[in-house]
């Protein structure tokens, strides 16, 4: 038996013994997700036990080094872990912006002390992070940001505000872009970490058109941030942010069509007789585009794995994937007819179609607008003049 096969047997046995039955059911809604953090209220004992058992062996972040709270798995081993998790429909023990976003940045840009301290906290689900990039008035134009950290020797005093901070009202710490040099537009930004319980931090949820409030406005009023809470070099926060934005675009682009490979026409015709021939034709044309994009997603991931493909390709994936997803939900609404218009009825699952439809409209804005993606493709891939 190969080492990998041995490893698979080990994992399988461990999962069998340690993954509670309740954690082998599909995630039904937001409430089933374990976000961790200081104030997280576990939904059940099983959820808590599942996190603790995984964290103890580094399985919350299986491919991070053991020194930083991970399990040190190789890429092949991590795939075995995912396969075995999928085999029993196990839920992720922990989901967080720390794992998805700050972690990769720290692994690349953090000091050894930062890695041990912060990555360990993330791996154990002790600290829930939020991201502070956009500001009111900045939008796509991140370099125009105004939040300012004044140098006070061993600390900065941060003043300003952020917008679109996901779950800022539930987060413990924030990773935040702060201007530390007013003279230099690009080079004058630093990537700081600080506690959301610091004096002077306050948050206000933003009500969205979908009726949900996953984002906040976040205000900083003379917030003190010690000097060792910077990631990367002073005034080079833009490098860290760009690295993370690339990550984010890859994540968002992968939600566009890759994991929804089935035929939309078939799905809606199961739900309701497709009597309208023009709508049916539009669904057929959509399915052509969606199935083609699924192939593109697969090709993109295959190329990423071996370092092929243009480095700006995630921008194209983000553009095409999000535009496709918006179109998908437009068609879901059309096929759903008046039933899909219902906003809070039980029959409509609390207006799930309508709210999902509205939610998709943010796809082509968050993580870089479609317009910015097209600019980037023009410049970096097509090399068009002045782009």
């Amino acid at each position, binding site marked *: 038996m190969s080492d990998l096969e041995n490893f698979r047997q080990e994992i399988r046995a461990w999962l069998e013994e340690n993954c509670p039955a309740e954690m082998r059911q599909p995630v039904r809604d937001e409430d089933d997700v374990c976000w961790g953090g200081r104030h997280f209220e576990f939904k059940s004992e099983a959820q808590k036990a599942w996190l603790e058992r995984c964290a103890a062996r580094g399985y919350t972040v299986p491919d991070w080094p053991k020194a930083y709270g991970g399990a040190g798995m190789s890429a092949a081993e991590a795939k075995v872990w995912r396969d075995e998790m999928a085999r029993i429909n196990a839920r992720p023990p922990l989901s967080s912006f720390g794992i998805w976003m700050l972690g990769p940045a720290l692994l690349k840009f953090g000091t050894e002390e930062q890695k041990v301290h912060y990555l360990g906290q993330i791996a154990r689900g002790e600290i829930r992070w939020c991201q502070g990039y956009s500001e009111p008035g900045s*939008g796509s134009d991140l370099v125009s940001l105004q939040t300012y950290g004044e140098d006070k020797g061993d600390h900065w005093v941060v003043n300003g505000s952020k917008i679109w901070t996901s779950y800022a009202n539930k987060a413990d710490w924030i990773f935040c872009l702060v201007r530390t040099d007013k003279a230099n537009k690009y080079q004058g930004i630093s990537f700081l970490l600080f506690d959301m319980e610091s004096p002077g931090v306050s948050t206000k949820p933003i009500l969205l058109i979908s009726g949900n409030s996953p984002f906040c406005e976040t205000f900083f009023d003379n917030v003190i941030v010690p000097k060792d809470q910077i990631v990367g070099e002073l005034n080079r926060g833009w490098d860290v942010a760009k690295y993370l934005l690339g990550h984010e675009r890859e994540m968002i682009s992968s939600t566009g069509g890759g994991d929804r490979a089935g035929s939309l026409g078939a799905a809606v015709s199961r739900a309701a007789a497709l009597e309208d021939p023009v709508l049916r034709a539009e669904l057929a044309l959509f399915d052509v585009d969606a199935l083609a994009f699924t192939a593109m997603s697969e090709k993109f991931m295959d190329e990423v794995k071996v370092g092929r493909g243009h480095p700006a390709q995630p921008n194209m994936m983000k553009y095409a994937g999000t535009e496709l997803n918006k179109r998908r939900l437009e068609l879901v609404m059309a096929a759903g007819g008046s039933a899909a218009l219902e906003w809070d009825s039980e029959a409509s699952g609390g207006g799930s179609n309508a709210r999902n439809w*509205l939610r998709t409209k943010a796809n082509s804005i968050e993580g870089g607008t479609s317009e910015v993606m097209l600019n980037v493709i023009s410049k970096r891939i097509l090399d068009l003049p002045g782009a």
Partner: protein
Amino acid sequence: MPLYHTEDQTMLADTARQFMADEGAISKQLRHWRDSGCKDGFGHDLWKSLAELGFTGILVGEEDGGLGMGHVEAGIVLEEIGRNLTPSPFLTSAVAAATALGAGSKDLKGRYLPGLLSGDSVFAVAIDEGRKHRPERIATRAERSGNGFRLNGSKTFVIHGGSADMLVVAARTAGGDEDADGVTLFAVPKDASGLSQDAVKLVDSSIATHVRLDNVQLDADAVIGEVDGGRVILDRVLNAGRVGAAAESVGVAGGAFDMTTTYLKQRKQFGKLIGEFQALQHRAAHLYSEIEIARAATIKAQQLLDAGSEKAELMVSVAKAKAGQAAGLAVREGVQMHGGIGMTDEYDIGLYMKRDRALAEFMGDHYYHAQRVAQLSGY
């Protein structure tokens, strides 16, 4: 007839524009009733004001106390309603139900029209039976019973059904579900026994009902027009409702577009007004073109309908489809060009997107009407 407004119509448009911008404004009406959890989803005071201006009688004959005007005039009011997202039962009561009642007996008119003209009554129309508009199929049954009829069946997507004093119900008195003939329209009072309604709030904060007709007993005088002869009235109601919805869509498109071009001239990104970016300019110019064309198609359909032209039906479907598509594009471009704030409830552009969605579905979306254009064109 030239495809622009006459002097009288221009005056009416000025009045409607001013009134709706003042009294029908989003902050005063839509947000107010939405955020106060109003069960009607609109304000009765505004409805009364519309009546005082004579608007509710636009499609009511002069002999019945109305203004005896046409669909061009009703469309003028509806475009301003659309521009301001003003919630009101104008389309269902003063356009669709009024058109049905116009075919009714003197008695029926006497019973219902005064309330419409005074703004005291609200009406609804109950046509659809499934999630998509398909009036070619009417399965709700009305059987002769005693002096009148007994209705059984169910209706969906009855806008303002819960607020209505009377529902115009399309039911089958003869033939199979898909037959063109054998349909009869009934004026069903809200308190008819056996009539029950489940109210649902829709994405645009309007309130619709699912209607159940469970042995609803009606007198013969509840029949609108002739027994078994309701299809011709129903078609008239549909034409009126569809071209009215098209006019409202043109207003929604125009309102969203104005808001968006204003934003393009204010918002800065990368050191420039975003309206300076040529990619956005071209999209805005294309959208302008689409809205202008939708408006022209809608006026043409209104005029043909008012003239009793046999081409009216085709053009009504063209108008409903084109206005729906133009408004859809306007709200999608509007939200995208507003960026992040377009996603917030605080900004109005998202409300245009929600209203457009409900209006597009009302009496047939552009898929339905494109199909109809093909059928009416003989292919």
